[in-house]
């Protein structure tokens, strides 16, 4: 296991920002940390990277405790904080040279800088001051900074927030690439991103883990009750529809377009067809609604 977290807790005053969470992450995998704002994603990441100390519990990275031996742990971790703080008055290369210094990089610094500029696609902008860069390029500088000392574990806190669609694609491709050799943990609240990038998923809400599994498993688990989007030729009423055996809910705004859900294990489409024939009300459209991560997320993190 690359990262092992046990009973990790952070209490601010009376409130638990992170409440006894435990998980472990396999090496060479991209893990998504998913949750609504204020769920404790950033706090967990800050504890892993040694920026804040846990109130109780422990976390180890490749067997090294992040509290007891924080300097050694920091050598194994590359971290991109939320909002990507940078020294805007520095030049890109100057900044990376500074990072080489604070990480005590032992190899050839100039060579490493050129390598990272190439890898993160900073080539055309490499002679600029950081303050003059667009958000997408700043994000690349942030990632280059996190990667500098070739860490085994990469922790990225909302690496794609505030990027335009083109930049988004580029940065995602870069992260996917990095995930081939490194353990990557990233937090986000963009569902497509998780589906596109992450092999493993940890969903966190109010400081607690509400689900953690392989992305595919999580998706399929939630697909047991099926919903359909139906359009009829003529208007119909809810109570007439609910009379269909095996139909559990039906909702509509205009009487012709309906979202209906079937009870567990019922093949509703046959019954719906028979009903339509009997009512002489042809079906114009019938669309099974795959539950995507978005609804899984909403289901798991809904506050009652």
């Amino acid at each position, binding site marked *: 296991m690359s990262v092992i977290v046990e009973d990790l807790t952070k209490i601010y005053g009376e409130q638990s920002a992170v409440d006894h969470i435990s998980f472990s992450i396999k090496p060479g995998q991209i893990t998504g940390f998913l949750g609504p704002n204020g769920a404790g994603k950033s706090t967990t990441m800050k504890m892993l990277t040694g*920026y804040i100390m846990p109130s109780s519990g422990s976390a180890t990275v490749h067997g090294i405790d992040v509290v007891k031996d924080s300097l050694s742990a920091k050598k194994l971790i590359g971290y991109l904080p939320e909002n990507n703080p940078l020294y*805007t008055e520095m030049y890109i290369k100057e900044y990376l040279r500074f990072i080489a210094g*604070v990480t005590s990089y032992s190899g050839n610094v100039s060579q490493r800088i050129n390598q990272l500029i190439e890898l993160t696609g900073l080539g055309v902008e490499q002679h600029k001051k950081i303050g003059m860069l667009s958000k997408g390029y700043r994000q690349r500088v942030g990632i280059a900074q996190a990667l500098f000392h070739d860490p085994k574990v990469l922790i990225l806190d909302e690496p794609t927030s505030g990027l335009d669609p083109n930049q988004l694609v580029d940065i995602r491709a870069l992260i996917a690439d990095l995930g081939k050799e490194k353990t990557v943990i990233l937090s986000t609240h963009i569902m497509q991103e998780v589906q596109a990038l992450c092999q493993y998923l940890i969903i966190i809400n109010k400081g607690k883990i509400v689900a953690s599994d392989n992305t595919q498993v999580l998706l399929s688990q939630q697909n047991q009750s099926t919903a359909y989007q139906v359009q009829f030729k003529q208007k119909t009423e809810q109570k007439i529809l609910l009379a269909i055996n095996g139909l559990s809910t039906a909702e509509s705004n205009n009487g012709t377009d309906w979202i209906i859900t079937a009870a567990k294990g019922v093949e509703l489409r046959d019954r719906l067809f028979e009903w339509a024939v009997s009512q002489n009300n042809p079906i114009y459209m019938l669309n099974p609604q795959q539950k995507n991560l978005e609804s899984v997320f909403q289901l798991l993190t809904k506050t009652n």
Partner: protein
Amino acid sequence: MIAIFRKEINLFFSSLIGYVSVGVFLVLMGLFVWVLPNFNIIDGGYASLDTLFEVAPFVFMFLIPAITMRSFADERKTGTIEILSTKPITETQIVLGKYFAGMVLVVFSLLPMLLYYFSVKALASPVGNVDAGAFWGSYMGLYLLAAVYLALGIFCSTLTDNQIVAFILGMVLCATFYFILDQLTELSAFASISGLLTAINIRSHYLAISRGVLDSRDLIYFFSIITLFLTLTKQLLVSRKW
């Protein structure tokens, strides 16, 4: 530590803070020593740089907090402190890197003062008739005083994420340690602790060194107060993690 040190130096000279603070110090000192009617040496008629050593602590009281105000306040405001704290370096290295970078600016401001010494020495009658002991003592004292101010200023910069607040706090703390404590000893309310107040007041030690006598007690005082405030700064940074 060297990376932080180098970064701070670059910052001083790319953001004009370095040039402006050194420049202002040199201009003000030049005015006081040679030009302003009530202070200048020419009118005074004595071949001594007492004015310089009397005025410099007050000028530093403004300039040094101006140099140090952004050191941690800005890192916190922009969030870059999070980058620093998650790299494999210790808080002590960060604090010392910033401290020594500030010291470089102090050296740049004080080195040209040697010119004044040699000018006064040449102007004296007979030539060379100056109190060398007093000069070198005061000159040393000025470095030590600036070193204390820097520690106080950096400490104040960790208290807030607002540079202006850090500047004002730094100025007040420097003033307190330089002469306010000294003034308090004259109040009857503080009569019982006046000995203690004098002992922790910078001015009494600065004046002692200015006489040209290097007493180990004064040196110990300066180094302990610097260590105290740099340690406090470090502890404050560490305590933020909890």
